[in-house]
């Protein structure tokens, strides 16, 4: 899996080579120290050669200085490479996510996408950095220290070759078992956090139903379960370092015993013995580093998999092949919409192959105002989402200006369509900046005009800072109805041929809503308007009303026609006591 991340190093690949050589140089410098020290002890002291000792000492200081240089440079290159890698990865992820279709977005939840772009990417960055700093270092340290140790005394090195396998097997066993336990810990931690989050969001429900005790009990259970598993994992992990210490210490004892005898027989110097013990220590430390890397890799594996899942997702709506250049329209002219035998179902596990829309056929002429009405889950939103290709039909065709939407360039198609979503979102920034989403270079006149049509101009002017009022994240400081009107204005500013309002006036009062529709009639004569609504008053003066019921069209016509011919429509009317005003 990890090789798949290699390309994201980009121009920092060369840093790998730098780091490689820097680490080697650094390790050699560092390992020379005990060797040189042993020379002082074994040659300099017995021969009482102060000059020799000073020379060796100066060499050691020089090596240490060189080592600072190598080490610092390595830190620089590894920081550069790992952060560069993370930036590339993050950008690829971000760009990928921007290319997602609605179906893709539905598949991943918002929170999980955010996690993948933030903490998962950070985890990968840490892994790369640690690789460059430790993964390179540990094996080199191991090999070099062994070479030095053998060069000092080959026979004594046998001890090292016995100790290492014991150490490796021992730690691997513990780490392997601990890994499983840590998975449990993580799961329980997620569960606990879920409970907390839920309680924060639904605190009113908890209080209204007087369920504090119930929730506390639930939390206590989750909390205890988490603590139990964390302790279990911890108990195992606390074995690692004592085991390592014991092995290391055992080896040291053996080295002193056998080495001491060699010193006794004169086949080894005291300094060499001291040096050998130092190398033994280095070897053990580098073995421990390996176990750290295993833990690190295990952790980043999950992050890596989550990231790859995003990168491997192919947006299921792609731009049409520009093969037939001529057949691809460059703009949208009239705004005529036609559905031909359209079936649709969501490609998710829960949908179970059930059609959300079946056999939809209708035509909307340019400039018409068409309303769509129907029950919750009757497929209204789904239907209009097919027009700007937010989803693709399962069967049949959607045509705009007599061209299949799949033959349009996505940009052309979507810039011709203004859409106000049911769950609308404003972004942090001023009102003006938000409106400019519709058209980046609109002047004040245009903005004001769009806001007036959406009946938003007046309330915007009423705000202390007018159009420059800063909206909090998600538009928290305006009311629901005001937000909806801003979103409508934003869509109008696009000057679209087709305008789709997906239940976008639900929070606007009836009177204002009537004014909006009136403004549409007067100012957007050449725009085809589709309105999804719940209220009969919102739809009754439309040129055409489409009644949807359980994914099928139950009737198309004007208010009068439908009232007389369509049972469902009449039922909806009656349920709203529409007769009241007239």
């Amino acid at each position, binding site marked *: 899996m990890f090789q798949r991340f290699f390309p994201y190093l980009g121009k920092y690949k060369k840093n790998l080579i730098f780091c490689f050589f820097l680490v080697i140089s650094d390790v050699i410098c560092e390992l020379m120290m005990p060797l040189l020290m042993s020379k002082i*002890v074994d040659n300099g002291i017995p021969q009482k050669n102060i000059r020799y000792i000073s020379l060796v000492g100066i060499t050691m200081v020089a090596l240490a200085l060189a080592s*600072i240089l190598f080490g610092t440079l390595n830190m620089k290159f590894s920081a550069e490479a790992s952060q560069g890698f993370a930036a590339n990865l*993050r950008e690829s992820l971000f760009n990928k996510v921007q290319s997602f279709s609605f179906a893709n977005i539905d598949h991943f939840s918002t929170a999980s996408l955010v996690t993948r772009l933030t903490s998962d990417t950070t985890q990968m960055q840490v892994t790369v950095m640690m690789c460059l700093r430790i993964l390179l270092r540990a094996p080199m340290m191991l090999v070099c220290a062994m070479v030095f140790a053998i060069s000092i005394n080959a026979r004594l090195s046998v001890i090292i070759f016995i100790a290492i396998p014991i150490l490796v097997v021992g730690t691997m066993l513990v780490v392997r078992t601990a890994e499983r336990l840590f998975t449990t810990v993580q799961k329980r931690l997620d569960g606990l956090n879920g409970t907390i989050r839920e309680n924060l969001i639904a605190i009113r429900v908890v209080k209204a139903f*007087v369920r504090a005790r119930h929730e506390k009990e639930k939390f206590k259970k989750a909390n205890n379960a988490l603590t139990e598993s964390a302790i279990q994992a911890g108990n195992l992990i606390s074995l690692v370092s004592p085991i390592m*210490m014991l092995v290391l210490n055992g080896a040291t004892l053996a080295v002193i015993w056998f080495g001491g005898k060699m010193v006794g027989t004169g086949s080894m110097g005291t300094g060499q013995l001291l040096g050998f013990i130092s190398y033994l220590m280095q070897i053990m430390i580098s073995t421990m580093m390996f176990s750290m890397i295993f833990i690190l890799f295990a952790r980043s594996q999950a992050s890596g998999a989550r990231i790859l899942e995003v990168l491997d997702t192919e947006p299921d709506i792609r731009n049409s092949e520009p093969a037939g250049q001529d057949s691809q329209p460059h703009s949208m002219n009239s705004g005529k919409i036609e559905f031909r035998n359209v079936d649709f179902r969501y490609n998710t596990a829960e949908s179970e192959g059930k059609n959300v829309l079946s056999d939809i056929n209708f035509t909307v002429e340019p400039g018409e105002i068409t309303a769509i009405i129907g029950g*919750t889950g009757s497929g209204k939103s789904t239907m209009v989402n097919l027009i700007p290709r937010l989803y693709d039909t399962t069967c049949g065709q959607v045509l705009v200006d007599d061209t299949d939407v799949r033959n349009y360039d996505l940009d052309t198609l979507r810039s011709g369509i203004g859409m106000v979503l049911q769950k609308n979102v404003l972004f942090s920034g001023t009102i003006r900046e938000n409106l400019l989403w519709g058209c980046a270079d609109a002047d004040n006149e245009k903005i004001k005009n769009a806001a007036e049509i959406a009946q938003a101009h007046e309330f915007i002017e009423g705000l202390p800072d007018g159009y420059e009022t800063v909206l909090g994240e998600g538009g928290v400081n305006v009311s629901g109805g005001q937000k909806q009107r801003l979103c409508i204005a934003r869509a109008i500013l696009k000057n679209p041929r087709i305008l789709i309002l997906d239940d976008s006036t639900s929070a606007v009062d009836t009177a204002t809503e009537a004014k909006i529709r009136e403004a549409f009639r007067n100012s957007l004569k050449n725009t085809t308007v589709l309105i999804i609504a719940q209220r009969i008053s919102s739809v009754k003066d439309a040129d055409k009303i489409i009644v949807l019921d359980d994914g099928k069209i139950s009737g198309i016509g004007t208010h009068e026609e439908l009232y007389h011919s369509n049972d469902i429509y009449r039922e909806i009317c009656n349920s709203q006591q529409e007769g009241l005003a007239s």
Partner: protein
Amino acid sequence: MAANSTPKRGPGSRPIGFEKPKNLIQTTKRILSYLKNSKLQVFLVILSLIVSTVCGLLGSYFLKPLIDQYIVPKNFRGLALALVVLGIIYLVGSVASYIQTRLTINVSQRTINVMRRDLFDKMQSLELSYFDSHSHGELMSRFTNDFDNVQLMLEQSLTQLFSGMLTFVGCVVLMLILSPLLFLLTAIVLVLMIFISKKIGEKSRYYFQHQQKILGELDGYIEENIGGLKEVKVFNHEDAEKATFSNLNEKFREAATSANFLAGAIMPIMGNLNNIAYAATSVFGGVLTILGHFTIGSLGAFLQFSRQVGQPINMITSQLNNVFAAMAGAERIFEMMDQPPEVDDGKIILVQSSSRSTDPGADRNVLRSGRSWEWKLPDGNTVPLKGDVRFSDVNFSYVPEKQILKQISLYAKPGQVIAFVGSTGAGKTTITNLINRFYDIEDGTITYDGIDIRKIKKDSLRHSLGMVLQDTHLFTGTILDNIRYGRLDATDEECVEAAKRASAHSFISRLPEGYHTVISGDGANLSQGQRQLIAIARAYVADPPVMILDEATSSIDTRTERLIEKGMKALMKGRTVFVIAHRLSTVRNANAILVLEHGEIIERGNHEELIAQKGRYYQLYTGINQLE
């Protein structure tokens, strides 16, 4: 150590590290009080920590006698014996270190467990206004980031700090014993190391803060973009978003590279300064040995110490940062724990009445199962629960300068349906939030069956009120669990019956797992309308004498609403009901309709009367006149 230089992140992340706790002593005392029950364990931890550190130091010091007394004089019998002693020291050290790690983990996990539970329990008792003034992310971060930091401190930082200092002192002492002259040399390098570590620390702190600031921007941007991704697509805004992101991403890369570099550079610099000390010791130690002031064994032991003495310096600085971050986190945790809980002076409680037959609605439905309730006064007398609610001259504001409700007076007789209408922000929801004492009124009184609601115990008051809120919140668990949330001892049959009455049965049955379908993430897999139906079923099961329906059917289409109308009527029958709705069909049958505007009741009457008045109500629901 390098891993610590990377920010840990959780929901509502905030920069960690380099934080200054405000009241160190107070916070420390408070944490210590949590350790009160583990005194013995803490004592054992300290003891084993000392033992293992001393064993480590002794092991190194042992090199001197080994070489001087046994190896050089070739006394192998003595060497064997000495090695056995050394082996025992090693063994004791390892065992002590195992005991210490294991105990520390146990103590810290259990401490965190208790603290976490305390905080959660506290959270449950807090005023709603606390949740209004603190974001979810912020509160969440107490449970995640702040506890993470405290745990890291208890589990690792404190013991490492302690053993680090002990090692440092021990090394210094033993080095002084071995050779004060050589120690002087080491001391110079040590001072240099401390100085450099401080300098680099300051600089890296600066870069770190810079990195965290940009990280905040970057994360915020990502969250907002992904939250509004559908909007981005509809407006073809992908390229603009990519460009903005790319900019921020690049800015972050630069900042993070500098911060990472500096944090990393400290290691080779310190390590090699230590090596320089080692080199200098070798040279001067060698010279001293030649001059006869020193033995080879002492030199060997001294060299060991000069390697060890530098390590704690690095560690102490980084662990101190952890401790400060943890203390700051603990302060935030305690600050939340110290919030005043909801005031509840009420002494009147709700009890099930002994005389069942008096319930006029006994035949109404299976759910009510003839239960009837009464208020039990402190003096032992009882008042039957009827559901008579009255407001007189109630004033209320969330924040002092912004009056939300002015002089509200109203009454609801038992069994009546009272509807509130008016534009957003008129104060409809606020009124209902006062009845169940989510918020307390400033002036005036609210009475319930003639009793001032402030005299009723909050739990009892809320038990007697059912609520279906505009934003439906469901909990992780099955649909059945969620319906049963209304009354925990409801049987499966009762829950299904409730679902049927709420018209939720048909869609629930169509789900693959039916009533046992697991709802996750606040019911994200259900539509808003379906969630409302479940919430209505939940209220059915609760079966309270007074009901508050706050836009309870706003996301249900009018036809489905019609289907559940019968159920709703049954739900309302025999109860006092407060309804907030913007749909005429929902409110027209109310006994009284109150029209609110800017926190005042401007019209009241039944549907016919209000239509005849041709006032605000008439305008709201006909859309003839243009208002706003």
